[in-house]
């Protein structure tokens, strides 16, 4: 008994004192605010369709409570053990993704993205994100342990980047969920970026990506989009939303109207008009536009600031982490949040084409909330053992 006690004490020697409470507070605030906004945006439609205006709120509350259990567990669960699951995490992610093809996969809202295990159902893409983070953090740390520059060799890059690419490919091919694929690739690139001292490759990559985007935009703006795939149509709709106001750009345009009409101070909480059936499923991707409408530019900036604090806290924790693995884990989570928040707001403001990325902690979505909270638990766990 005493033996085990002493052993544990060694492992978590910096506990209790250094856990990042600012981060926890920000997350709790975001979660509470998210629930409030979900109720505000969905109550009208839920009342209409389900006869229960709190329908979405209740669902979200369930996953949030489940998420808090996961959070509490991850705070207690020593993150170092996660390193043992690095390969398993990727393999399990891949298997779960493949399971979507089996009868276990279910279709909701017209997309086959869910796995239904009767007691629990979730999107394997969300699992894959956390799986990729664990894998990358572990493998980068291991490669660095083997030699300083091994990771910079083509072979090293391949070991780091191929599994995430495969996962992203599976996500895109099996679930037709491009946004999750982008996020997985984004996380991988970001973690690699932090891990290696090089810049030029990343600049080259950014330049290449920029060129591709430019080419696509040029093509889309000149080409006749009738008959071409819906992704290209989305690009066209993005470039000229007014022209596609009835179909492709309907949602985007309605979101823009919501943002624009909110002004600096907004219409007041609960006063959105766009949520009254004009902006369909406002509690999902487009929730940020309703925040803008109800709370104005001021409220939106306050939310952005909270995310900045969240990400900043992650950066601080990553910097202070006692080991490379913990630091990289936090970098992965941090880049996950950053990518999702930035892309979501960019979509809502029509800065980039509509891809269907949710706003962490605020948008409606059970699986996402559960795993986002799990990730926060990991970060907090890392923060406990910080220097």
């Amino acid at each position, binding site marked *: 008994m005493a033996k085990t006690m002493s052993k544990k004490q060694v492992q978590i020697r910096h506990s209790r004192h250094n856990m990042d409470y600012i981060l926890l507070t920000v997350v709790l605030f975001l979660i509470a605010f998210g629930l409030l906004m979900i109720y505000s945006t969905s109550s009208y439609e839920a009342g209409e369709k389900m006869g229960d205006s709190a329908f979405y709120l209740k669902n979200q509350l369930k996953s949030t409570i489940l998420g808090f259990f996961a959070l509490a567990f991850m705070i207690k669960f020593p993150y170092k053990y996660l390193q043992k699951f690095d390969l398993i995490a990727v393999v399990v992610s891949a298997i779960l993704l493949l399971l979507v093809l089996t009868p276990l996969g279910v279709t909701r809202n017209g997309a086959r993205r869910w796995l239904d295990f009767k007691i629990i159902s979730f999107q394997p893409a969300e699992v894959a994100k956390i799986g990729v983070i664990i894998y990358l953090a572990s493998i980068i740390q291991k490669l660095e342990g083997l030699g300083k520059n091994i990771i910079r060799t083509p072979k090293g890059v391949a070991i780091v980047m191929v599994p995430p690419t495969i996962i992203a490919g599976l996500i895109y091919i099996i679930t037709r969920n491009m946004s999750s694929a982008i996020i997985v690739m984004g996380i991988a690139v970001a973690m690699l970026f932090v891990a290696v001292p090089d810049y030029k490759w990343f600049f080259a990559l950014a330049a290449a990506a920029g060129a591709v985007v430019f080419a696509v935009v040029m093509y889309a703006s000149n080409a006749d989009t009738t008959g071409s795939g819906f992704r290209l149509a989305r690009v066209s709709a993005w470039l000229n939303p007014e022209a596609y106001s009835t179909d492709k750009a309907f949602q985007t345009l309605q979101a823009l109207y919501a943002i624009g009409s909110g002004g600096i101070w907004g*219409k007041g909480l609960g006063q959105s008009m766009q949520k009254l059936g004009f902006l369909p499923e406002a509690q999902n991707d487009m929730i940020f536009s309703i925040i803008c409408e109800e709370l104005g530019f001021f409220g939106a900036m306050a939310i952005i600031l909270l995310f900045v604090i969240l990400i900043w806290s992650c950066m601080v924790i990553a910097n202070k982490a006692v080991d490379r693995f913990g630091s990289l884990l936090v970098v992965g989570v941090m880049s996950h949040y950053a990518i999702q928040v930035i892309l979501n707001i960019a979509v809502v403001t029509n800065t980039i084409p509509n891809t269907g990325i949710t706003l962490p902690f605020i948008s409606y979505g059970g699986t996402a909330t559960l795993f986002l909270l799990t990730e926060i638990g990991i970060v907090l766990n890392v923060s406990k053992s910080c220097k």
Partner: protein
Amino acid sequence: MKLAVMMLIILLAFAGLGARLYVLTRDNRNDYQKKILSHLDYNSKTLPFKRGSILDANGTILATSEKVYNVVLDCRVMLDDEKNEEPMLDALAQCFGLDRGELTKYVKENPTSQYYVLKKRIPYEEREVFEEYKKTYNEQARQNNVKASEEERVGIINHGIWFEEEYIRRYPNNTLACDVIGFTGTDNNGQFGLEEYYNDVLNGTNGREYGYLNDDAILERTTVAAMDGYTLVSTIDANIQAIVEKYIKQFNDEHMNEAREGLGAFDIGFIIMDCNNGNILSMASYPNYDLNNPKDLSMYYTEQQIKQMEEEDTYYKTLNELWRNFCISDTYEPGSTAKALTLATGLETGRIVGNETYECGGGLNVQDRDISCNVLSGHGTLDVSGSLEQSCNVAFMKMGEAIGAKNLLEFEKIFNIGLKTNIDLAGEARTASLVFNESTMGPVELATSSFGQGFNVTMIEMATAFSSVINGGYYYEPHVVSKIINSNGDTVKNIEPRVLKQTISSTTSEQMRQYLYAAVAQGTGRSARPAGYAIGGKTGTAEKVPRDKKHYVVSFIGFAPADDPQIVAYCVINEPNVADQPHATYATGIIKNVLTEVLPYLHITRTEEMTIAEQEELDNLLGNIVASDSQNKDGQDGDNADKDNPDADAEGGDGGDGQDADGKENEGEDRADGGGKPFYVVDPETGELIDPVTGEKAEMDYHYEGGDSEGGEGGDAQDADGAAPAEDGGT
């Protein structure tokens, strides 16, 4: 280090997005706000007013507006959620019996249609069925949806199906008093009769429901309730009206296709007027039409004929002729009924004192023209009373000569002949050009005018002028509406009787009553007298143009009772469908039948002895009336009353409706002491409609709450009013 760079990139991205947000809100605020407001439903919705009802003197509804609903489908709203389509179309098919296949087709072809009227003018009960269905269905669906996953979720019935309110005009008595009431389509624009004359009074103001933006640009909805129109309480008594219509219809049926193809006469007009205040108690003409279906000609014409009319473009002309109110819109030469006015003029001007005698040889030569009398062999020597009794044209031509053109014309004006009476009905004819003036009246015209030929009148002109002749000389403006009340039953305006002028002195009037009484008692009007009553009156048989002695307007105008006139009754038959037209008996027959029923109804008691023959005739007539109402047999003696009363008790026990039992009892009593009483379309005690078949209170309860006691009071007041001038006349 690299972490700091990444953080920098992230911060830059956030800064960029923040800037983008700021630009969006700054540049597009007004634009986008307008866009949002534009798809909000702040356009207004009209709330229709309810057009006022028309009640009879007892408060019975003659015309009323009923709220009905149009079923409207808004496909766009319905397809907010595609799952809604199925349950909603199912509901439509089930509740309104619509074709499911056609609905599906329509929705498929017009998914964005927002206003599609599926069914028009359904009553509230049908709407209720749907609302009930919707409620139960939605409750189930929601219970299911709370638990169900996305695929299992079922659609609901949302507000994509809604009901547009509308009022339609209903006339519970169909043809009753059609000429007086007139009709109104859904446009609330009355045509003919009271509906047209009082159109603005009957119509209210539409309400509105509209949204507007308050100072904080938040949508607020406001409802301005509709102002319902005012209700008219008319002086028409539905029962008297029904009696009158029954007998003119009977005349028509008797003489249908007799001498020529067609109805019993071209027109039959009948007016009963309270001579002491100008209230029109009944105004009817035949042919009549169904107010609920005014464009239906099938009562009088075959389908083929109607088709032909449509082809020849005479369809609407025919309808217009049917719709016009003969009693006020059509003019004719009055004939001998005008002799009452001539005589009154003579007496009032003093040109005739009453002791004159006239020699009739069957004709008179006026300015080289032979004008014959109605009896070609001549009447011999007649005094003044005898001239009226025999309706001698020669005597009246001589009277006219004595009176002189100037006086005759002056009194024509005093009697309002050639001027509108200003009765409150639409379509009164102007007769100014149809009467003579000083420059057009020569000796021949003077001679013919004195016995009622050569100039034209309307029935209402004659009836009103005649009223003043016998009521003591008071010329009352005739009117059909006694009171205007609002939708709560409060009185907005009382229309009091208006004495416009004194036409003749009360002494002359008294004299006239005696002469006219004699004209019925011993003269040509004999056949108009209902058994047991003393009435006065004058027949009329007017030659029509061309004067080929074939086409006549026969009429009778009379008053009852003879000593204390209460009502004036006037019947005009335009060319009765008989081989030999010039007999006023066609008109007096209708008068007699009507008065036999109406006078007891008005509580005017029989004062004259009845001969055995008359008694039998009366029994026969009343027996017929009673027998024609299925429930009543020869209700004469106590036996029958006894037999009816248990019946009434049983009814009361069944329905538990005290009122019914009461009504029955009353009837029983009346029968026991009054010797049989016909059924009325309206119960005179309660003002409720009576089902003609069962004699019970009619199913459709059009009874107007506020009108009952009001109507009763009005009636009392009329009686009281009526007494005063009559007493004056007596002095």
